[in-house]
């Protein structure tokens, strides 16, 4: 990871970096696999268990986290040279909390039914370790644009897992995808039952576990030396 120090801004004319340079694209791509916030860093598990019963709330949740993550990264990165070090965590929290409340208000005003399903979990984005983790680890030490991309990337990485988990849970738990009946009625007549455990939180853990297993067995970078 780029560890650009914040001290002594040396005035050297650097060639302007393109907006989507290889390095910047990596910021978005990495969290999808190599440094996925859920499966590799194991952050944000709590909300991944709670909101993944159906796909629609999961997608809205993922978008919300992405927005909060990207903009809090952007704001904190822009302020990083002015934030007093002693209260930086509080400043980060205030920025995150303000963004989360904004997101919550917007959801309540425009997608009320989804906002109801997500209930407290939108508010709990404030405590989502991914957001704070990225602020401390990345935004405090990098320029605004890469920080913004990093936020988007981590939001996407989080969202990817949420969507996979919720698709499996909705399909097996209620026979639907995005609220549409997928398992045909004739299956139920032949004795097919929705899987009760799929709508309970433990199933999310099991699915996340399976994803980690598959990911680790295929991604050589994640295989730890014996």
């Amino acid at each position, binding site marked *: 990871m780029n560890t650009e120090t914040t001290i002594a801004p040396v005035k050297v004319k650097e060639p302007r970096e393109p907006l989507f340079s290889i390095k910047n694209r990596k910021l978005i791509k990495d969290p999808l696999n190599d440094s996925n916030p859920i499966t590799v860093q194991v952050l944000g598990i709590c909300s991944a268990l709670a909101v993944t019963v159906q796909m629609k709330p999961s997608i809205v949740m993922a978008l919300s986290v992405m927005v909060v993550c990207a903009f809090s990264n952007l704001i904190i990165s822009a302020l990083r040279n002015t934030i007093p070090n002693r209260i930086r965590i509080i400043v980060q929290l205030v*920025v995150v909390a*303000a963004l989360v409340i904004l997101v919550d208000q917007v959801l309540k*005003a425009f997608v*009320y039914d989804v906002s109801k399903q997500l*209930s407290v979990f939108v508010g709990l984005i404030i405590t989502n370790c991914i957001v704070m983790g990225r602020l401390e680890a990345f935004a405090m030490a990098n320029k605004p644009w890469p920080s913004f991309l990093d936020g988007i990337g981590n939001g996407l990485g989080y969202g990817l897992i949420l969507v996979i988990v919720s698709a499996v849970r909705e399909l097996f738990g209620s026979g639907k995808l995005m609220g549409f009946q997928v398992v045909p009625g004739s299956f139920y007549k032949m004795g097919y039952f929705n899987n009760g455990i799929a709508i309970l939180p433990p199933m999310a853990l099991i699915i996340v576990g399976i994803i980690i297993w598959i990911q680790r067995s295929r991604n050589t970078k994640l295989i730890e030396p014996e």
Partner: protein
Amino acid sequence: MNKNSSGYTLFFSSVMVVLVAVLLALAAISLGPYQAQNVKTEKMQNILASIGIKSNAKKAEKLFNQYIKQQVVLNKKGEPVTNNINAFDIDLKKELDKAKTGEADKQLFPLFVFNKDGNLYYIIPVRGKGLWGPIWGYVALEGDMNTVHGASFGHKGETPGLGAEIETEEFQKQFVGKKIFDESGNFVSIKVVKGGAAPEDTHGVDAISGGTITSNGVTEMLKRTLGSYISYFKTMNKKGGNVATGN
């Protein structure tokens, strides 16, 4: 400037707090009307659902106005109050909270009279406690003010798959045809019976396995909230009149 001095820290945090407060206040004020409309529409949808009218956010208001016949406000004694309060605007939570603050005699209870296909339905809002938070709903009684025509329930945060099942159609349709008075005219409410209600039991429905506390919450909620309307129903039935004619 010394970024680590107390003065700077104080200055930074003050500016930040003021900015954030202004921003959030602006957002809350500008989005407020949309949110209020959403809450109102949802309430209409829930009321309509209890008499079996399915609606969506767009149609709810139109359907509500189409079917509603009368909104009645009752006081604690079950007498209709006529002081320009719209039953729809009564917040049942606030009314029930009055009991805690010793203002129980000031409680007001809303009642909605609907006319669907020529039949009258009396819709009573109910509210109580589940396991994790409040539960609420609407119970629609038929013209005899005894038989349940339908019920719809909602909850804030009951466990999905367990307590949250009260929101499902399977749970709610059990209430259809149940009676709140016994044969001699005493109020018995409807109980959610753990282990399953007997098929001939007109005052019981099956509880949700694993959702006992929520189920008990529903029983308690029905008994308490419906109880507030009993004297009104009894007077109405005695008079032989009905609410809708207002006599």
